[in-house]
């Protein structure tokens, strides 16, 4: 898994119940739109991310909002945890448990 995908999953995990929008995620993770959106597409394609359209401000177009599904949350936690363990093991030579 790429570091960018982990960044995005981590961003979702910080507010797991909140609906997020693309520009917010882009600013939060520092990823450009061309990297972020194909990634979101893939996550949604694998039912790890749910999407909806929401009108936030009158006079502006509806925004596409994103939230991890239950299986997406499990997947994200698993990935972030295993990566943290790997980093700990690499850095300190321990098992990280």
């Amino acid at each position, binding site marked *: *898994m790429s570091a960018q*995908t982990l960044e995005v999953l981590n961003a979702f995990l910080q507010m797991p119940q909140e609906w997020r929008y693309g*520009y917010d995620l882009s600013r939060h993770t520092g990823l*450009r739109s061309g990297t972020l959106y*194909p990634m979101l597409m893939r996550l949604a394609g*694998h039912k*790890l991310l749910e999407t909806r359209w929401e009108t936030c401000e009158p006079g502006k177009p509806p925004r*596409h909002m994103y939230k991890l599904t239950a299986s997406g949350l*499990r997947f994200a936690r*698993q990935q972030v945890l295993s990566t943290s363990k790997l980093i700990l093991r690499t850095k300190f030579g321990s098992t990280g448990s």
Partner: protein
Amino acid sequence: MSTLRSLAVKILHGTVRLAPPHAREWSSAMLSEVDFIEKDWSALSWALGSTRLLFARPTDWPVEVCSLPEAISDAPSESQPAYGWRLCPGCGRDAGVRHFNLRLFKPNTATWMWRRHSCDALHRLSAVCLAHS
């Protein structure tokens, strides 16, 4: 609306029009999002990024990710796309586009391309646009 922003909106409209069906909703999402970006240069950068959706395919999920989560096995099997390369009419187009991008955006050759082969580049770009339309 500034020139930069109107250019960004034009690019995004083009992306929505040319995007493959599975990416159309996402390019529309990027188009609607541009109204919430305050800086014009950021809006243009956002719009340029949207062009990557033209080449996004539902099959290019990395293999190591596919085999990992139990989460994925929750999804019904008929909804799972086939992984890896698949022959389809879009492949030839994608290969051409990727070749074009490689030559155009490779740092060492970008200037060279624009100075000496701008006609060639424009020819390829127009071929891509025709293939999409």
